[in-house]
């Protein structure tokens, strides 16, 4: 029975995550404490997946976890490959093997790996793959900024709120960073949210690809990002967004269409964010007017604000979280627990060799992630320190 339910639930989850209709998987965390609509629940655990139910404590049962054995030698090998992209030397291998206190020796070896300049290069690569961008200095600036923030132990939220030094460079020969500012004419920089390479890489109609990049990369879910507990009926179909159904445009593209799917389930959120990215042209330069196009047939037209939103609507990160500009968006994201959870979950999956959270549904349940979320917050959102805790964990050192 359980297997059948799992098989049923996953395809459903996939379809939901692919922005059809309905609610995304529930985001755990549960520390926002409000009764408002659920915000984009992405990495969260399937609720109750591990529970015993009916108030009865779960009987202890033998699982694959019990079959693991502590192996610091294997842990050092794996950590070295992951953190500096090379094997430990024979000298390092033998010193660890000969150590009386294996745990202490492993911890010391881990300190050295995290302090190794090659760690910087590995993190640049990690962020290239995560952000789906890189290859030349312009396209590398965003992943390099993320790696630099990690390397320096700065708050992860600087990725969205930094107002200067947002286009650093990386020297692969010395594995060192150099400060740099983006030169794309933005009124005010906001971390990677105003990065010219990102704006170029994700240029599209109505800036929707830029919005989707933000959502999938930093919230770890696809749209819909906001789902109410009790859907409303619109044309006989479930409307699940907390926004007013008519808050988005219906001409020349009818985002209020319900004939196939309820577009507004996703587009109420998307269309309140997209205008913030609309003034970047295809080369990532910020202009004084909207630079993206609306794909009308036979000829596309330059997007107007009314194409996204009805008159009087304010740009927003989420329902009830108005943001006037990209620095405002950055601050809203920095305060969003879903963004923090996504960062920690991404680190866990890197540590444990898991796949992509969004495309492969490699979510991490709160039973596993909770401790690290707490440590992440306590450390001032120091992602490097949190990653180190993961490499020291029993789960990483047992095979």
């Amino acid at each position: 029975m359980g297997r059948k339910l799992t098989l049923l639930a996953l395809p459903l989850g996939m379809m939901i995550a692919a922005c059809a209709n309905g609610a995304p998987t529930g985001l755990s965390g549960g520390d926002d404490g409000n009764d408002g609509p659920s915000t984009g629940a992405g990495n969260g655990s399937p609720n109750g997946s591990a529970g015993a139910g009916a108030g009865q404590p779960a009987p202890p049962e033998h699982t694959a976890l019990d079959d693991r054995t502590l192996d610091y030698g294997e842990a050092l090998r794996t950590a070295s490959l992951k953190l500096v992209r090379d094997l430990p030397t024979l000298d390092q291998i033998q010193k660890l093997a000969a150590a009386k206190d294996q745990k202490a020796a492993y911890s010391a070896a881990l300190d050295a790996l995290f302090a190794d300049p090659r760690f910087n290069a590995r993190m640049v690569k990690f962020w290239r793959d995560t952000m789906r961008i890189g290859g030349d200095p312009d396209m590398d600036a965003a992943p390099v900024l993320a790696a630099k923030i990690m390397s320096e132990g700065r708050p992860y939220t600087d990725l969205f709120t930094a107002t200067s030094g947002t286009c650093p460079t990386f020297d692969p020969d010395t594995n060192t960073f150099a400060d740099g500012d983006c030169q794309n004419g933005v009124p005010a920089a906001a971390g990677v949210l105003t990065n010219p390479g990102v704006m170029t890489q994700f240029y599209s109609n109505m800036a929707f690809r830029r919005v989707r990049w933000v959502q999938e990369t930093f919230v770890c879910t696809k749209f819909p990002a906001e789902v109410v507990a009790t859907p409303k009926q619109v044309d006989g179909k479930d409307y699940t967004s907390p926004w007013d159904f008519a808050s988005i445009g219906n001409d020349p593209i009818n985002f209020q269409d319900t004939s196939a799917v309820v577009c507004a389930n996703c587009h109420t959120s998307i269309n309140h964010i997209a205008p913030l990215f609309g003034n970047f042209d295809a080369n990532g330069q910020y202009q004084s007017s909207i630079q993206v196009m609306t794909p009308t047939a036979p000829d596309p037209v330059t997007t107007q604000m009314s194409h996204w939103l009805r008159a009087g609507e304010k740009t927003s990160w989420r329902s009830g979280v108005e943001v006037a500009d990209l620095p405002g968006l950055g601050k809203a994201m920095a305060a969003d627990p879903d963004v923090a959870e996504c960062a920690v979950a991404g680190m866990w999956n890197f540590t444990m060799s898991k796949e992509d959270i969004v495309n492969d549904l490699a979510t991490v349940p709160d039973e596993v992630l909770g401790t690290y979320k707490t440590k992440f917050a306590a450390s001032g959102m120091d992602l490097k320190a949190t990653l180190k805790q993961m490499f020291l964990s029993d789960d990483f050192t047992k095979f």
Partner: protein
Amino acid sequence: MNTNIVTKYGHLAVLGVALVAFAPGCAEAPTGLGKTHTSKPGDQGSDPNDVENQPGNGVGSQSDTFDHFQTLGDGEAGPDPFAIAQQREEEGPPEIRTRLHSCQKMQITTLKNMLTSFGVDLTATASNGQPPTAGQLINGGGTALGGANYAARVGEQIVWTAAGAAKQFDIFVQAAPEIIANIKTAPACQVNGTGPDMFNADNTCNKDAISCLIGKPATDEHIAICNNLVTSASDIDKCKEIAVATLLSAAHSCE
């Protein structure tokens, strides 16, 4: 072949598949099975004038709604929910499987670094009529090895494809002669300025050399397997090369 369901101690099974299926072709570069991405930023779906070629995988029909991308990457296959369901089912409950190591493919840079540290010259090219060198296989095999294609908004792959796993074994086979010749002088394999020979004078495998190759202390089982490989064929030099490649492949099928 999706190896992510294989935990790290299952990597020998992966090796077995690779050996059985691909060993006959180990001296030749297998044809890349991966799709070549050629688009650039602003290509597919980015050009607002190219209404006809907006990406597929949309919701609804084209007459009443607009197509949507399934993923952010051009040409990137969208997930098959049934395949994911099957995979997750095999992996077990999330609170268990997420705490177990999965099998991530070796990153291409990692592979290069590792071989270089063993003394392999990745810039070497093969003579006419000879099979490609390890460096040529790596440098020309980015697609099969799951390399990134950032122009198409696709990062480096996390799990193996059959083509990638086979190619890595080919690379190890081609690198083996250089490793045997150079491991003694490779700084990564030296302790106090002295490195081990790959094989002892009696053609048995050297424990320290194996430890250096696999990145952790070699066990008696490692040595026994290596010795068995060396003595199980008629050409001892070829067998030594196969032994080194096999040890590397078994140890490094998973990062």
